[in-house]
């Protein structure tokens, strides 16, 4: 596992152990990668991060059209692997989680432990952070900077 913010490591490791998920990617909504597990190439993280943010944005737009306040979680069930995209609203803005899991676990278990992880992250999140506010326009730059930190390129 690789994390930009060390306080995330322990709850995320516990989530991985309990949920038996294969891949996890935790990002801010502006594209900064907070932590990842299971990805071996920065290119994959970049693609997954961008696609995840895009899916959440487009389903948010659908929710607007439906007059709903938004979708907190999106589940895609595949035949061999499935995917959960979930948002956590934090004092530092919205974080997005992308979790890939196989048939060794279930969508119910992954969702259950994701909810536990979300509560733990909110409880442990440092109150202040000395970083400028993130904007959609800086998505690519933020993503690239966090990938350099994670993969050392």
């Amino acid at each position, binding site marked *: 596992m690789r994390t930009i913010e060390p306080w995330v490591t322990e709850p995320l490791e516990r989530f991985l152990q309990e949920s038996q998920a294969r891949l996890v990617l935790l990002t801010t909504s502006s594209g900064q990668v907070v932590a990842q597990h299971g990805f071996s190439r920065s290119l994959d993280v970049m693609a997954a991060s961008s696609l995840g943010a895009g899916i959440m944005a487009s389903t948010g737009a659908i929710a607007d059209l439906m007059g709903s306040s938004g979708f907190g979680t999106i589940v895609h*069930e595949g035949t061999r692997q499935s995917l959960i995209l979930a948002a956590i609203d934090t004092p530092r803005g919205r974080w997005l989680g992308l979790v890939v899991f196989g048939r060794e*676990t*279930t*969508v*119910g*278990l992954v*969702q*259950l432990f994701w909810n536990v992880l979300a509560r733990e992250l909110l409880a442990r999140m440092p109150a202040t952070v000395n970083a400028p506010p993130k904007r959609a326009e800086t998505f690519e730059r933020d993503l690239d900077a966090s990938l350099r930190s994670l993969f050392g390129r």
Partner: protein
Amino acid sequence: MKPNFEGALEQLTRVRGVRGAVVVDAQDGIALAGALRDGEDGDALAALAGAVMMRLVRGSDAAGLGPARLVYLRGDDGLLCAAPFGGTLLIAVLADRSANLGLVRLALLDAVGGLAA
């Protein structure tokens, strides 16, 4: 015809000491129906009971015991009973530690028998 999950669950919750019961799709660990006391988490019960049951069913089959008909776990604060039916479905029952296991077992097997019929 839609199975009468609610009727089966209501019968189970009439047993003294039962805190709730859920019908679970064990493959997904998701509750299809539930009857629970206030404060009981049906989604958590469904996810955990589904995971435990699927593993035990596979394990008992692999050990040559045949498919499991009923599983129960007794903890310090309660009792969890689960029984599969209809392929990948199961009923999970959460009860107080003081509940009569024999009565819970009987009601559970009755409920899954009725739904499987």
